[in-house]
């Protein structure tokens, strides 16, 4: 992309109407007009800021509490109250944003990289490579994904790192199939045949022609995927297979507090609300991106 920009600048551009409208720039324009997507952006940005600035925002340490202050209701001192260990819920949620965004982002990046690589190879080379990769994907998709994640964590041992890895692994087939399908349709396009006709190597065709043209659905699915990865991480945390105490993972906080739901509902409500809001933010942006990147939505 950077190269295109510099080239555009070199050319004596007629000032009137000669601004190149690249497909990506068009998509950005469409996205900016979408109010719900902007709301989603705002939510994500908010949580990113919270995560980055956690040490300055959080009034207390996330792993320190006094047993005399157990299950206190929200007050000026403890905005979201305290949990069964007397720890400040607000501080824990602020630090938990770091964990959730980190897990969501990196697990999706991991599955996208692996899935895209496998999907490109399967789709472009076909034959036995395709059969092999596709069947492995089918087998993985035959398991309920959370069950597979539990199995992987059980093998690797329960920890946040391993939960992230498990979430990345179970989502590889989603991206792999998506990319493979896109490659299969792109491969038949005339501009790919034209690329072969001018004597382009396979690697260049894949990286310069097929990959950029399959990026749109990957971005959309990836954005929505962050939301489900956050939920999956919370679920693993809830089952005790993800974050280990005293790490303030939102799912884990929910799980630990559920026996106090009658006595101290705030210990459940606020982590739940945080998960819901983050997921909502990513889903809104994902939907907006889908509309912006879909050529059929152009008017």
């Amino acid at each position: 992309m950077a190269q295109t920009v510099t080239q555009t600048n070199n050319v004596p551009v007629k000032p009137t109407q000669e601004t190149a409208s690249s497909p990506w720039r068009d998509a950005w324009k469409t996205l900016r007009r979408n109010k719900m997507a902007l709301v989603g952006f705002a939510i994500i940005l908010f949580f990113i800021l919270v995560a980055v600035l956690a040490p300055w925002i959080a009034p207390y340490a996330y792993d320190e509490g006094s047993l005399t202050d157990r299950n206190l209701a929200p007050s000026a001192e403890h905005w979201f109250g305290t949990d069964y260990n007397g720890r400040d819920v607000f501080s824990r949620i602020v630090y938990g944003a770091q964990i959730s965004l980190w897990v969501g982002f990196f697990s999706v990046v991991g599955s996208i990289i692996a899935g895209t690589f496998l999907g490109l190879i399967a789709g472009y080379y076909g034959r036995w490579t395709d059969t092999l990769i596709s069947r492995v994907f089918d087998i993985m998709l035959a398991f309920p994904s959370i069950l597979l994640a539990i199995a992987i964590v059980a093998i690797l041992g329960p920890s946040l790192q391993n939960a992230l890895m498990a979430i990345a692994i179970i989502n590889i087939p989603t991206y792999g199939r998506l990319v493979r399908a896109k490659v299969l349709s792109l491969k038949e396009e005339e501009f790919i045949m034209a690329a072969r006709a001018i004597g382009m190597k396979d690697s260049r065709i894949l990286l310069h022609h097929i990959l950029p043209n399959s990026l749109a659905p990957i971005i959309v699915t990836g954005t929505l995927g962050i939301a489900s990865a956050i939920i999956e991480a919370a679920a693993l945390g809830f089952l005790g297979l993800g974050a280990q105490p005293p790490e303030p993972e939102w799912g884990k906080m929910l799980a630990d507090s559920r026996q106090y739901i009658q006595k101290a509902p705030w210990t459940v409500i606020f982590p739940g609300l945080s998960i819901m809001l983050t997921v909502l933010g990513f889903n809104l942006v994902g939907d907006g991106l889908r509309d912006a990147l879909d050529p059929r939505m152009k008017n």
Partner: protein
Amino acid sequence: MVEDLLTVTHLKKYYPITGGVLGKVVGQVKAVDDVSFSVKKGETLGLVGESGCGKSTTGRSILRLIEPTEGQVLFEGKDVTKLSKEEMRLMRRDMQIIFQDPFASLNPRHTVRKILEEPLLVHGIGDKKEREKRVDELLEVVGLSSYHASRFPHQFSGGQRQRIGIARALTLNPKLIICDEPVSALDVSVQSQILNLLQDLQRDFGLTYVFIAHDLSVVRHISDRVGVMYLGRIVEMASKDALYEKPLHPYTQALLSAAPNPDPDAKRDRIILQGDLPSPANPPSGCTFRTRCPLVKDICMSARPEFKDAGNGHFVACHLYNE
């Protein structure tokens, strides 16, 4: 005597039909079935025929964009079908193609500059400055301007895009260009512009064309010689005047009689063919045209007619001329 630039002999492309649970090959679609012809340097050879007769497959097999099943493609004396992947890649500098659909043949995410620069980049020709100069030059050659280079394909009309496609084919200074229905997707007024451009380029750069089309008048306008294809085979090939004035093969006669005549008062003797185009998966025995031929004889059922010279380089594959 001008030498042959391209000689195609016994070119075949069969597609397997698989069936059953095990994916066994149960039949073959004979898209191109034993096609032979040669093209002289600087000449334009037209290939006409109905949709599905194998014109495009022939063109693409010559460039090995589709791997031919059998046969030889000699380009400047070298058998293209025997080249390794890397040798073929380098060979592509000399043989190019212009595609039918100018909307599908340009990468929608690349600027025109990038599209035209890429062939040079891929073959390591020139530095950044020289490549830029070449792109500007090419755009002028095909009737666009250098300021178009920063635009994307979707910002152009169909005719303009086809000019970009032509410019891309010219980038590497090829000797042979396969024109795969280059004007079929364009308006009539734009068609003539593109045809004239192709003729100018041929004169200026000494190009050789294999021109594939289904429009008889277009082929007549641009070609020196014309081959007529039916069901994967060439049934007749002659200089354009001989073919259009005195067609020999019954299929060519029927095809020409169906071409629209601009004179509304002209009396037309149309030969209406009976029946449908047979399936190329199960072509008729002997002469493939016998099922629809008005002049069918007994021998047509049993023997495939040879592709023979009926005098003055007028080749025809028909038993009527096989005395």
